[in-house]
């Protein structure tokens, strides 16, 4: 051995192979099955929308990213674009998706100084912006197209023109049916994903499997989804026992809407979730509680997005409250 036996270097001495790009690209890779199932269920519209929202996110990152932080290759803008695309209804005009991606990256990430410093999840901020700006377009859900190849709505509507609405196309999501018409969708349809809804809010099973893969590779904090699922299941189960006609059961609540996608991919965003383990449990429980409150008593049928955004705002607080005690330290008496 030609190397000297005694190596001298600064700590840390044991390093993992993970870096920001490897983690981000592995998340992108784990999204491939979710994207594939979205395209399988919604045809070319899904592919177009995902491409448009990614283009918006990447273009903004490229044009306005600061010199030091302009890192297209780290994959974080691609994740934002993909996740935003997965929260959109398949019939949305493409320019809206582009705008959402641009807004999410610009006002959700770049103004804070780029990756790692943002407070709110950029994809969800883009989605909330679209919901506020285009409330009609973003809640129009197509049911079923004649063939796989046909578009699910007026994807190519020009900016500021009202899209051609076809009555035959508008359907309702399982959550909407439950809330406004008290009709339950069968759990099996929900788990497999053969229902109307946003691109990524259909197949819970695929998302769970992808999340499991990420959790095993430790690129995802499993405590957050676990805490969300437990809270939602407990609350929904309890309410269902109280009044089964009015409140849907836990399986429906877990697998309907964007809960799976939100819990697995959005709440676990490393930048906007708490750093302590105890904080993660609290964070997840807060999201679960807000989801139930907004879904059951709010004016909207879906609340995952708002629940995560609101808990994002509380993260600095959670971090401070759950700061672990330094080993061996004792409370100062009588203050400083």
């Amino acid at each position: 051995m030609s190397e000297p036996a005694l190596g001298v270097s600064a700590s840390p001495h044991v390093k993992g192979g993970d870096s920001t790009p490897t983690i981000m690209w592995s998340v992108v890779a784990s999204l491939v099955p979710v994207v594939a199932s979205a395209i399988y269920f919604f045809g070319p519209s899904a592919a177009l929308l995902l491409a448009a929202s990614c283009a918006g996110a990447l273009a903004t990152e490229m044009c306005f990213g600061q010199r030091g932080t302009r890192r297209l290759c780290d994959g974080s803008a691609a994740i934002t674009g993909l996740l935003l695309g997965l929260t959109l209804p398949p019939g949305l005009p493409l320019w809206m998706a582009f705008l959402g991606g641009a807004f999410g990256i610009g006002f959700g990430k770049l103004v804070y100084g780029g990756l790692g410093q943002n407070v709110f999840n950029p994809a969800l901020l883009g989605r909330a912006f679209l919901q506020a700006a285009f409330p009609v377009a973003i809640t129009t859900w197509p049911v079923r197209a004649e063939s796989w190849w046909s578009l699910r709505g007026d994807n190519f509507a020009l900016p500021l023109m009202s899209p051609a609405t076809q009555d035959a196309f508008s359907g309702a999501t399982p959550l909407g049916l439950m809330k406004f018409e008290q009709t339950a969708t069968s759990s099996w349809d929900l788990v497999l994903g053969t229902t109307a809804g946003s691109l990524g809010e259909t197949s819970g099973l695929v998302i769970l499997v992808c999340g499991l893969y990420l959790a095993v590779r430790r690129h995802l904090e499993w405590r957050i989804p676990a805490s969300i699922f437990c809270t939602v299941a407990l609350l929904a189960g309890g309410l269902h026992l109280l009044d089964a006609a009015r409140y849907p059961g836990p399986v429906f609540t877990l697998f309907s809407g964007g809960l799976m996608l939100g819990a697995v991919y959005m709440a676990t965003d490393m930048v906007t979730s708490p750093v302590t383990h105890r904080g993660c449990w609290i964070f997840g429980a807060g999201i679960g509680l807000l989801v139930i409150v907004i879904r059951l008593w709010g004016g909207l049928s879906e609340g995952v997005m708002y629940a995560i955004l609101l808990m994002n705002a509380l993260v600095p607080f959670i971090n401070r409250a759950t700061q672990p005690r330094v080993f061996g330290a004792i409370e100062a008496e009588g203050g400083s």
Partner: protein
Amino acid sequence: MSELVWIFLSALVVNNFTLALFLGLCPFMGVSSRVETALRMGAANIFVLVVTSLSVSFLNAFVLVKAPYLRIIAFIVVIASLVQVVETVIKKVSPVLFRELGIYLPLITTNCAILGLAIFQTNRGYGFFEGLAFAVGAGLGLTLALVLMASIREETELADVPSIARGMGLVLIIAGSLSLGFMGFAGLLSSS
């Protein structure tokens, strides 16, 4: 009783004065750089709101019945004198806090959240206890918004914010994002 709880929760989150109705933005932007200061500003606001609500109930019941055209003038006089009281007390009790709040303390007088509360309360015909629940809810809602904003601003203090967004620009963007989040509560409580 449930009516009172409804009014309280509605003022606290659903129609949060700052994040849903955009009232009282001036202290929200100005005194939200430290959590401690934000909490005390919130406490001062709660006090002024509650006493305003009590005075408005009194005025509405006994004085303004005879002279409704004096309403806004009467409210402003009440609010201004209340703020004077708060200012004198804080100056005496905690000179440090007095300096930290600075111009924003006398500005509570022109804080539209306070006058807004007085006018909402009158227009909706709230009685004594309803007004009290409304004032406490609105005050806690203001404090909640202030503290949320302050904790986020402390967090972004070390961030590498681009020069165009530094300072008030970022604060306004955070306020907008928070408000987008609070839109999720829209329609809550209205159906039940």
